[in-house]
């Protein structure tokens, strides 16, 4: 086995794993709060990528510059989704909850295809792609600068989110609602505001992820499907509602996905199947996921 090749795969896995973790943390946060899975999460990501794309085409802003705009837009989308749809179905049967967000996802995907065509879009000459020619060489391991930046930004966003929910009063209120909604309400915490905040944070996280992905990943209306599938796996693997779980599982999925073709000779086309199989094996041993409380 070629060590450089393996190192290359492992680094790639860690880099994409950070982005997976950031995409997934929004999902897990929302689930922890209100036990709802956002099946439109992939479409949120897709819209974030398009936001970055159109900012670069229409406003001539690099994705890194328009990042605050993208994040703000997605946070707003999260808020609107909560107020418009989720708040109506908080006590509905689980089936209705699944399909409400699923329908929203189809709607957004259809809208994107209608407005912007199903064609692939890429951002021309993103800044990150031009730094040192777009790649750096670390002892034979070649890394894309956009990928490194994406992982770093994802890490920063993840850390900021973690500090926010563990160190601020509002963050603690958020945790209190996730822990026990009715007791938290007795303490004077407005659970609906915390739910809305959960969706705003979830939207913001996926906004960061979309903005950093847009620099190196082709954008189509269906781009969110695969990322969302992986995010569901990450969330279930880490344990629904667990923020550290999302980080560990995200990195694990990234590593397995990239390393399995080299370590076990799995054809690269099967790399996602290996990820799904890994998830199944883990939940069979620990049905609540790695860090789940159940």
């Amino acid at each position, binding site marked *: 086995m070629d060590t450089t090749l393996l190192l290359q795969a492992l680094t790639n896995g860690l880099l994409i794993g950070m982005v997976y973790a950031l995409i997934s943390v929004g999902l897990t946060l929302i689930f922890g709060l209100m036990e709802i899975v956002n099946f439109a999460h992939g479409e949120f990501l897709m819209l974030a990528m398009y936001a970055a794309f159109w900012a670069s085409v229409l406003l001539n802003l690099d994705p890194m510059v328009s990042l605050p705009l993208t994040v703000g837009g997605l946070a707003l989308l999260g808020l609107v989704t909560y107020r418009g749809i989720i708040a109506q179905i908080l006590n509905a049967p689980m089936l209705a909850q699944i399909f409400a967000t699923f329908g929203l996802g189809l709607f957004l995907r259809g809208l994107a295809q209608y407005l912007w065509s199903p064609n692939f879009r890429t951002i021309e000459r993103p800044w990150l792609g031009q730094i040192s020619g777009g790649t750096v060489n670390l002892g034979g391991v070649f890394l894309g600068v956009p990928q490194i930046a994406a992982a770093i930004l994802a890490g920063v966003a993840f850390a900021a989110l973690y500090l926010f929910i563990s160190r601020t009063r509002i963050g603690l209120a958020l945790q209190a609602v996730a822990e026990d909604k009715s007791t938290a309400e007795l303490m004077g915490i407005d659970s609906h505001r915390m739910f809305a905040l959960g969706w705003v944070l979830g939207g913001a996280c996926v906004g960061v992820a979309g903005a950093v992905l847009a620099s190196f990943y082709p954008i189509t209306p269906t781009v969110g499907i695969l990322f969302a599938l992986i995010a569901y796996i990450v969330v279930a693997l880490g344990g629904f509602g667990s923020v550290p779980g999302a980080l560990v599982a995200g990195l694990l999925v990234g590593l397995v996905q990239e390393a399995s073709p080299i370590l076990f000779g799995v054809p690269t086309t099967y790399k996602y199947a290996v990820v799904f199989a890994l998830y*199944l094996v883990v939940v069979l041993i620990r049905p609540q996921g790695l860090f789940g409380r159940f």
Partner: protein
Amino acid sequence: MTTATARPIRAIPRSWIALGVLALALLALPLVLRSDSRLNIAILVLVYAALAQAWNILGGFAGQISLGNAAFFGIGAYTSTVLLSRWEVTPWLGMLAGALVAAIFAVIIGYPVFRLGGHYFAIATIALAEIVYTIFNDWEWVGGATGMLIPFARDIETGRPTNSLYYLQFNLGKAPYFYIALALVVLVTVVTVIVDRSKLGYYLRAIKNDQDAARALGVHVLRYKLIAIAISAAFSAVIGTFYAQYLLYIDPETTMRLELSVLIALVAILGGVGTVAGPLVGAAVLIPAAELTRQQLGGSGNAIDLILYGALIVLISIFQPNGLMGLVQRLRHRGGPRPTATPTEQQATAREEAPMLGGYEEERG
């Protein structure tokens, strides 16, 4: 079509006259529709009605929400097609073989996956179906991503494509397909009615309402869940074989994707989960609407059909989570002795209509 299906709803379940009228209307439908494209929609309605009915046994009665039933459908389609194209086995035998393979597969995956509950189960079924899809998509022996063509049954003398019952293939007109699909719907529905009224039905509903309580009362939870998934998988596979013979072409993209799994569940949900008539009503409403919007609006790939479809799903989920059968029952209640129900009474009836809700709240607690 709509009049034919709307009629029995008001009169079910015991009115045999309405059922007879419906049967006659359905039998005469190919004579009335005449055009192939309209008959095609009718056949699709039947295919989805049968698939949703099969889903309903697992998702509606047992409350195990599967978003991976397309895998069973695809396994059925592929089993019969492989048997036919490699060894000339008649699709009728292939259909049984497919049902067997799918049922065995379902039981094998059911053992571990049924340890999971709620969202975990739904996501595990997505993951499983995606694994099956990925495998078939790269498996050259079964055609990989390009799929498999089923050769025409040809007339020995003229060499032209012809009808052949043995090869389950009708190239001279779609009417025979319609009647076979109708027979399949009747078959699945009869099985559903039997399940509904048997001990199995009570066990499944008990599991759905409160699995732990059911177990405490001595219900062998895993065994009945496995029976439910095996029945569901077997019938999904049978319909898969039919679908393969109808299109004479299959590929992983159309037979195994998440979109199909979702549509199957959606048909049942729109009609009303856990009811016998729900999936049939759901298919009769949703499929023609979807097909017609696609033909009228989405032909050029502009995705207006997708936008409408998505919006419709959201609206149903918010305003009519119990499906059309819930709506019908509510209207019937309204016509009863108490014309105006207080909000709490309405909630109580809604809860009776959807035992899901009760089970769900307990899960949350």
